[in-house]
């Protein structure tokens, strides 16, 4: 009997504890003041707090070692990790940063950056960046909007890339940037790494591609100029404002001279808060157009590519390649809890040999969930449907994060 009585007491205590937790949950949500449709369970709030404290908020403010969890291109797998170290010298005047990482599919990278970000009272930033990378399983389906899914192939891409860059900010939200860089003779190899999907080598499937006509890929010199207006309230989890950008870039084959070209880009992302910021409508459009001299061609690893978790989510990563590309994304996010959003989205776009042929014929739709802090998205799970079926995506970044814009090196292969 005594034992039963003790169990009853414990049950009553547990029930009371549960009641207190529910009460506290409601109170906790009120305290944060963040917009959401429902009061957030404490376990989520504390999980986000722990993640922020342990992993940082994604900014580069803190000195010392940090976990390098990003900095891998699309296709690397759902997670990558490695050590990083950064240090600010002379107050906030000079930044030295270095990191290395390995991903789920054994993509590897090492990078180092040196930057003077606050010259001329923060109006001028200059820096240099070097990166070595070994991308073991980059997918390629052939050129053009009608490339076949059945022609899926993979190649391994190893490269060393170095650039110097400068950004002028006459006003806080306007950046005029320029960079010059060198891509040292990249290697195109047989696919390798972990969790291989058994796809054939690109060299076997597309043996007649001009890229494989030479034993070694040339080195490239490249340059870019850009103008960016950025009024987003946060970079990694924006809920208001917008980003509008135009860029002109070129790359020059330093060996044979046949793989040289130019590229023009226009991009806009706008975030509209609705219902007291509990709903955010995100709109994004991006047009890229390439041009070459007569007789020159653009190797597939320089070509714009469409498809995957940041562009057309119902299609595979790098699904379509061609000289020109257009994509439009519309996404509505609903703040279920303070740190959890539900999302519905639609993506549309295409690639084409000529800009005038671009359309929005490739489409995908879907729903998703986002786990985020106030400053950045920690994780997302998207279910997307397109003409080639369903895709389930788990990533550790926001689809419209536009993190590629903060990269200082030319993106090779082109990473949307």
């Amino acid at each position, binding site marked *: 009997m005594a034992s039963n009585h003790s169990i009853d007491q414990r049950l009553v205590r547990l029930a009371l504890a549960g009641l207190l937790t529910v009460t*506290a949950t409601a109170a906790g949500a009120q305290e944060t003041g963040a917009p959401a449709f429902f009061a957030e369970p404490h376990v989520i709030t504390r*999980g986000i707090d722990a993640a*922020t404290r342990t992993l940082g908020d994604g900014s580069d*403010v*803190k*000195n010392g070692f940090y976990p390098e969890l990003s900095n891998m291109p699309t296709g690397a797998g759902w997670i990558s990790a490695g*050590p990083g170290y950064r240090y600010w010298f002379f107050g906030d005047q000079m930044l030295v940063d270095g990191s290395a990482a390995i991903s789920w599919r054994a993509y590897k990278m090492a990078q180092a950056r040196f930057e003077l970000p606050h010259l001329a009272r923060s109006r001028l930033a200059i820096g240099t960046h070097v990166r070595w990378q070994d991308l073991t399983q980059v997918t390629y389906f052939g050129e053009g909007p009608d490339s076949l899914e059945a022609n899926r192939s993979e190649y391994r891409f190893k490269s060393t890339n170095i650039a110097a860059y400068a950004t002028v900010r006459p006003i806080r939200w306007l950046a005029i940037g320029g960079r010059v860089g060198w891509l040292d003779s990249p290697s195109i190899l047989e696919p390798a790494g972990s969790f291989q999907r058994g796809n054939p080598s690109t060299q076997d499937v597309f043996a007649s591609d001009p890229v494989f006509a030479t034993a070694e890929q040339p080195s490239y010199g490249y340059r870019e100029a850009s103008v960016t207006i950025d009024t987003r309230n946060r970079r990694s989890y924006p809920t208001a404002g917008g980003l509008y950008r135009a860029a002109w870039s070129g790359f020059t084959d330093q060996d044979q001279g046949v793989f040289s070209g130019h590229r023009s880009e226009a991009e806009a992302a706008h975030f509209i808060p609705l219902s007291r910021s509990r709903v955010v409508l995100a709109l994004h459009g991006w047009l890229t157009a390439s041009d070459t001299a007569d007789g020159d061609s653009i190797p597939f690893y320089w070509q714009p590519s469409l498809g995957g978790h940041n562009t057309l989510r119902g299609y595979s990563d790098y699904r379509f390649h061609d000289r020109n590309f257009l994509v439009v994304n519309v996404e509505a996010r609903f703040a279920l809890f303070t740190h959890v959003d539900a999302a519905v989205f639609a993506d549309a776009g295409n690639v084409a040999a000529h800009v005038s042929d671009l359309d929005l014929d490739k489409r995908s739709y879907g729903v998703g969930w986002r786990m985020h802090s106030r400053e950045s998205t920690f994780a997302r799970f998207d279910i997307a449907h397109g003409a080639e079926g369903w895709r389930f995506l788990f990533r550790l970044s926001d689809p419209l994060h536009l993190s590629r814009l903060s990269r200082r090196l030319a993106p090779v292969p082109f990473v949307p």
Partner: protein
Amino acid sequence: MRALFLLAAPAVIATHLSSCAAEIRPALHPDAPPASLWVAPADLEDRDVFNGPWGADRAPAPDARYRVLEHKHTGVNPGMTVRDPQGRQWSVKQSGPDTPDEGPVEVVLSRVLSAVGYHQPPVYYLPSFTLEDDWGTHIERGGRFRLKVASLKDRGEWSWQQNPFVGTTPYRGLLAILMMFNSSDLKNSNNTLYEFRSAERREYWYVVRDLGTALGTTGRFAPLKNNVDAFERYPFIRGVQGGYVHFHYQGWHQELVRERIRPSDMAWAGDLLGRLSDRQWRAAFRAGGYAPEVADRFIRVLKNKIAAGQRLGGLQEWSPYDAN
């Protein structure tokens, strides 16, 4: 994957093995100046707990314009070093975007510790301030302001496990007080050894400086802090066994208080805190920017804990069920 595991495993193991902590024993630097943790507060009842031991003259002006010198590159919370119009430099600790403000907690606990005799640097709380940076002037989120003073030189951190005061009543009493506040972050990196110099003397002050993880629950990962609901709910003492007080403490370095704090230490700490008047308690919370109704709830819980500590004095065995 093996590489990922090998990277993560040592950190996880080190986090969960208390045996990784150093042995707890007294330790003294032979060439160091006299060491001081606590000075008996003869005038406790008269102390200005709102302005603290460094006084109103050293407080930051709420309406001044502060110039940012450098952003904070260490610790979890954001912050910056700023200079005021008088040329004084302040270290400002702000709240993170997703975390409760630690500044009020730090200032309250600092005020209470200094009132009862423990050394503290000059810290104050401002809810907001005017900041001038490269882009102009704007109103910035406030936080804990700590003044850089010439008489206090930061000489690095000191160890909870090995310092001159291990085994002394003020050392154990300090831990007892921190238990009362549910201070969860008993890490050496939160301790600062200050070299204090004045015309009359030079000594090393052993200061628990980063006190912001308190007034909530205890825990290693993301304990609730600055949360009066949680503070009211969270249990305090499990009982007394073998002459030692057992706490419901789940924070860092539980070995510091496990079978180390005696009922007499609780009574000593309780007697010290019990000398603070209601006016002084409210002043401490007012210094941290708390609304009176929230402060009263925190104070009510703290007084209950103080009374519980005082009641333990002299007991060798006690369980909360004994009360029934």
